[in-house]
């Protein structure tokens, strides 16, 4: 019986993530349209796009090109299994935060691999930008994760979520500063403005995705939707206390809507400006928070 439930969960959680992620993409476009005084596309427009892309004949640049996008998608799918979605977490007893730290790097590396198969110079620029950006936000991210782990003395996300039950959210605990730092790097992790540097359609024609057509682009879009879900879900789990499926989704929606507003009013950073920003305020704040947590721990023995 337990195994059946586990198997069901393993099937269900990527599906939930996919549906929510794609709905979020649709909502994103609709909201942007409304901010820009437009009517906007229907909410299911991303689904229509996906149907169209799957029916279009893509162009492959060889085996590595195909493999890369699959690795990227697979890495993201695996990552979902480690993240509790409203009390549903297929792989709760293993790894936790540490695994997430590692698996999160799969997606950019997969895209980088795939880009190696293409010949367009925009790809290599896009990939180098993406990797630099990843490197930039990983530093504060690791500080945040360390602070969390030492505060709750656990590496399991499920335990962290449970510890936050009854409104003892980490955002309103001594981890407040870490939460702020996480929120500051959230746009960079989501790849929205001012950090949509890796794609930057007006500069390098969407960077690493420039050569993808047809189903390759469709896979990339699905990966994007899943990644969007994962990053917001992680924030909700770690700092906003998770909750059951409904409250979880509502919290995700709130975080996402804030992100859209940020996206709407900012231009794009240059890559060195982004690194400078990410290595300055978020890093300092998250580091202060880490020291603060260590002090509390030391005082409490």
């Amino acid at each position, binding site marked *: 019986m337990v195994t059946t439930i586990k198997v069901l969960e393993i099937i269900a959680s990527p599906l939930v993530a996919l549906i929510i992620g794609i709905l979020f993409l649709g909502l994103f476009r609709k909201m*942007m349209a409304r*901010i*820009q*005084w*437009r009517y906007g596309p229907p909410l299911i427009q991303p689904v229509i796009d996906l149907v169209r892309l799957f029916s279009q004949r893509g162009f492959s640049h060889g085996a590595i090109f195909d493999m890369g996008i699959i690795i990227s998608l697979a890495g993201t799918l695996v990552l979902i299994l480690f993240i509790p979605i409203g009390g549903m977490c297929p792989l709760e007893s293993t790894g936790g935060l540490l695994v997430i730290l590692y698996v999160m790097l799969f997606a950019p590396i997969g895209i980088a691999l795939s880009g190696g198969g293409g010949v367009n*110079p*925009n790809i*290599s*620029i896009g990939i*180098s930008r993406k990797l630099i950006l990843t490197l930039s936000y990983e530093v504060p991210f690791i500080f945040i994760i360390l602070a969390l782990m030492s505060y709750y003395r656990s590496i399991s996300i499920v335990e962290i979520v449970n510890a936050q039950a009854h409104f003892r959210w980490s955002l309103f605990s001594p981890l407040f500063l870490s939460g702020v730092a996480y929120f500051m790097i959230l746009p960079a992790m989501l790849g929205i*403005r*001012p950090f*949509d*540097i890796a794609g*930057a*359609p*007006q*500069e*390098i*024609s969407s960077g690493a995705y420039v050569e993808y057509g047809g189903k390759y682009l469709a896979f990339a879009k699905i990966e994007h939707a899943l990644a969007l879900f994962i990053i917001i879900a992680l924030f909700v789990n770690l700092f906003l206390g998770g909750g059951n499926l409904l409250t979880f989704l509502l919290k995700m929606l709130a975080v996402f809507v804030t992100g859209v507003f940020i996206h*709407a*009013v*900012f*231009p*794009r*950073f*240059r*890559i*060195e*400006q982004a690194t400078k920003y990410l290595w300055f305020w978020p890093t300092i704040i998250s580091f202060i928070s880490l020291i603060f947590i260590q002090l509390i721990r030391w005082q409490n023995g």
Partner: protein
Amino acid sequence: MRELELYFGPQHLGMVGNFSITLKVEGDRIVEAISNPGYLHRGFEKLMEYRTWIQNFPIVCRINVVEPDSMEMVYAMGVEKLAGIEVPERAQYIRSVFLELARVGSHLFGLWAYSNMLGFDTVAQWAMYHRDLVLDLFEELVGGRVYHIYIWPGGVRRDFPKGFKDKIVKTLHSIGGCVPDYNNTFFENRLFFERTNGIGKISQKEARELGAAGQVLRATGMPYDIRKIEPYAAYDKVEWDVPTRQDGDAYSRIMVIRDEMIESVHMIFKLLDNMPEGSVYNRVPNPLKWKIPKGESYVRVESSRGELGLYLVSNGGDKPHRAHFRTPSYPHGLIILEKLLKNASIADVGNIMISLYVVAPEIDR
């Protein structure tokens, strides 16, 4: 590091107009940039030699699609000078109002292109919407949104319809009402400053050497404006200022464009207040048999991008012997752009290009 060759345009989301720049890049830094025009070359000046004086009006405006009116104006001025035609005073005022409206529209288009380039989608959409309100005015006046063929030798094609003045005022007020919004989200945005400050910097001396005009020169502190130096239409009849900035970088250029837009709107109000009554059109001879005496002329106007000149030669026939346009984008796009792109970052290619306000059809003609 490996040197890559990168084609920026013509098929590129950041490229406005059919223009291409070949970049040699090392990592994110540009080693060499070569402008590659000619995608829009139609041989206009050759075609003009095959058409009569009056037939040329519909094709002259198509040289520059963003602001066709200054093209009409410069050609009309050239023809008037060669043929010795006087223009009634009311027509002069109408021409000025019309050209300033076109300037506002053109600058809003530039604002769209620029903010879109930086990733400011929201402001870009607003600017495009407001440009459309200006185009609606043109549509009511002449029937066409983009190409107007309104300015004519001897005046303008028709008078303002009833109540049109109020409409202009109303439209400009509704655009002007959004200036605080633009300021808050765009011009006073910290990130906008960070992205543009010090980018594509050119000193006044260098700009003079390279034949710059328009915003590029005014952003370096020189109030060089043909409307002041050699007033045409009704520009000497009202008071107005030439906005300048001192730094010569992309930020200054965009701020000059913003100030100029506001100045133009104020100028339109003043022109509308002082506009005299009277006829708007002096008859020209039968256009089908119109022969213009032998001679040559050089006329210049200030288009929304800088000094626009026309060298027109007549050999006494019913067609021009030679017409050559001095377009402002020509030195900006072919010399200054190449200079400024050297050692810039790839992220700033479109930024620099659009801040120089390079309009490709003007270069190629």
